[in-house]
């Protein structure tokens, strides 16, 4: 692994998509634009996104997920046996439509706007999930590279839909075996290609723990089927450890947040990491990439019991606001977490991406860049103090 400075600055993954890129993505999905035509445009957007991060002083860059519809649905293009389906299509197959309707009403969103990758046939790999993204980035930056990929729990839960997937896999448990195999191959391939940091996105874990009936999301279309949180967390730990078993040589992290689909803080999930930490700490990964910049993330004291057990990717800016967090405030936030983590274990990142869902940017590139600049300024202060 390449040398990393203290308090490395990185992102969680996504960057706001331009209007032309969103139009092109829609055209590609409608079969009106070829993959190569889309990629020509996306290549330019990725380069621009990398430059913005470099200029803002980011140490570990991403490609902004510019080629993706969202952080997990993009796998439909990479895997055989999956289909990108709108929740409005899934209504025909849902066992409990009334419950899905309640969630749609609570979120005030149309069912056609939410898409999930659904397993409709035996899962198979067409190409790597993100190998093309990494190969392109390596041509265009000499910074360290982070590749976010959907975690095994997220990928399993989001894609197994009763009424469709059970025709191929008896249960989500059965499906998870193929998911783990595919993700293991991906991790090994990314590592061998020289990826510096692989981030598993598992945001629906907080949905499982903190989601109430009226505040659930369709981040994962299958989620409105309620399950026991402890069993789900144990399932997530087991899948992650099966995925990572015996693998070393690349930094890994798991990202958990409380929702990034709206700028209205009151519709996003609330709760500290206390109930999740005993499980997250059992995951065979290096870093917890966490949302910590808003009061919704709760008290940081919950980390006391697990001091220094893992690295922390500390969320220090809110990606959904126009205000730029002052560097001094970011430094203060980091000092707070240094009660529980040594300086070499703290990374700085925003709470989440700046455009988790392609058609739902939560900020502009200009503000995103300024927030990253503030983080870099904070890192300079911290390195001077603790370096």
């Amino acid at each position, binding site marked *: 692994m390449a040398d990393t400075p203290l308090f490395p600055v990185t992102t969680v993954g996504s960057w706001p998509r331009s209007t032309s890129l969103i139009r092109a993505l*829609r055209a590609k999905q409608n079969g009106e634009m070829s993959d190569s035509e889309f990629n020509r445009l996306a290549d330019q957007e990725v380069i621009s996104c990398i430059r913005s991060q470099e200029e803002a002083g980011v140490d570990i860059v991403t490609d902004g997920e510019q080629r993706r519809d969202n952080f997990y649905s993009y796998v439909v293009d990479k895997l055989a046996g999956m289909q990108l389906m*709108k929740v*409005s299509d899934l209504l025909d197959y849902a066992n409990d439509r009334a419950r899905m309707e309640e969630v*749609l*009403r609570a979120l*005030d969103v*149309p*069912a*056609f*706007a939410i898409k999930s990758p659904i397993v409709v046939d035996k899962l198979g790999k067409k190409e790597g999930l993100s190998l093309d993204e990494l190969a392109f980035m390596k041509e265009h930056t000499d910074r360290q590279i982070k590749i976010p990929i959907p975690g095994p729990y997220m990928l399993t839960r989001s894609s197994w839909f009763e009424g469709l997937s059970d025709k191929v896999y008896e249960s989500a448990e059965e499906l998870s075996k193929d998911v783990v195999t595919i993700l293991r191959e991906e991790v090994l391939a990314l590592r061998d290609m020289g990826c510096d940091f692989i981030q598993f996105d598992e945001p629906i874990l907080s949905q499982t723990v903190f989601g109430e009936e009226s505040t659930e999301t369709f981040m994962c279309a299958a989620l409105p089927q309620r399950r026991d949180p402890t069993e789900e967390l144990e399932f997530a730990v087991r899948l992650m450890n099966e995925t990572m078993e015996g693998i070393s040589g690349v930094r890994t992290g798991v990202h958990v947040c409380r929702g990034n689909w709206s700028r209205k803080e009151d519709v996003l999930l609330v709760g500290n990491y206390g109930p999740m930490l005993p499980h997250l700490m059992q995951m065979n990964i290096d870093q917890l990439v966490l949302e910590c910049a808003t009061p919704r993330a709760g008290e940081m004291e919950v980390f006391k019991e697990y001091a220094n057990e893992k690295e922390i990717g500390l969320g220090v800016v809110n990606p959904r606001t126009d205000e730029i967090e002052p560097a001094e405030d970011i430094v203060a936030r980091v000092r707070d977490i240094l009660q529980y983590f040594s300086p070499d274990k703290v990374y700085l990142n925003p709470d989440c991406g700046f455009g988790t869902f392609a058609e739902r940017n939560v900020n502009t590139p200009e503000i995103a860049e300024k927030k990253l600049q503030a983080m870099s300024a904070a890192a300079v202060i911290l390195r001077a103090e603790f370096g």
Partner: protein
Amino acid sequence: MAQEENLNGLPKEKLIEVLESFRDPEVFNAVTGPWKSRVVWQGGMRAKAYMRNHVAEMDEPGDLTATDVAASAHEQLLSAMGSCITVGYIVNATKRGVRVHDLEIAVDGYFDNIRKWAGVEEEGNPGYGRISAKAFVRADADEETLRDIFRLAVEGSPVTQTVRHANEVSTELEVIG
């Protein structure tokens, strides 16, 4: 022969021709009515409605002691209103040459006094006293155009305007055997 333009799943030119034909008194009389439905009780709170060559089932929720095998009649009224606005939206969009990618309408209704239906009160209106509909659309046009199309769809919706205005409804009962 040139292929006719198909927009939103409809033949645009033919549609406009059909709509224009409503100016003809003969056509107007034919489409004015009567529109017909025959509803046959199926036991419990279930009923089947036969309309031309179509059939719709109706029931009531299980907590009313019914079997809940189908939506209730009043829910289907809400659906009828949403569906009617949907048709109107697509017709008006197609006439204007606007391509619609997605359209979805969420309709809510609140009864004025459902106790009258239950027979535990004598007074009040057991029907919906408040109905709201919210449409979501994704289409190739500016917001002003899409809002104007929505206005035309609502103002021109036979079901919505039936619900909105007081109407003459005559009922009678004939006892057989």
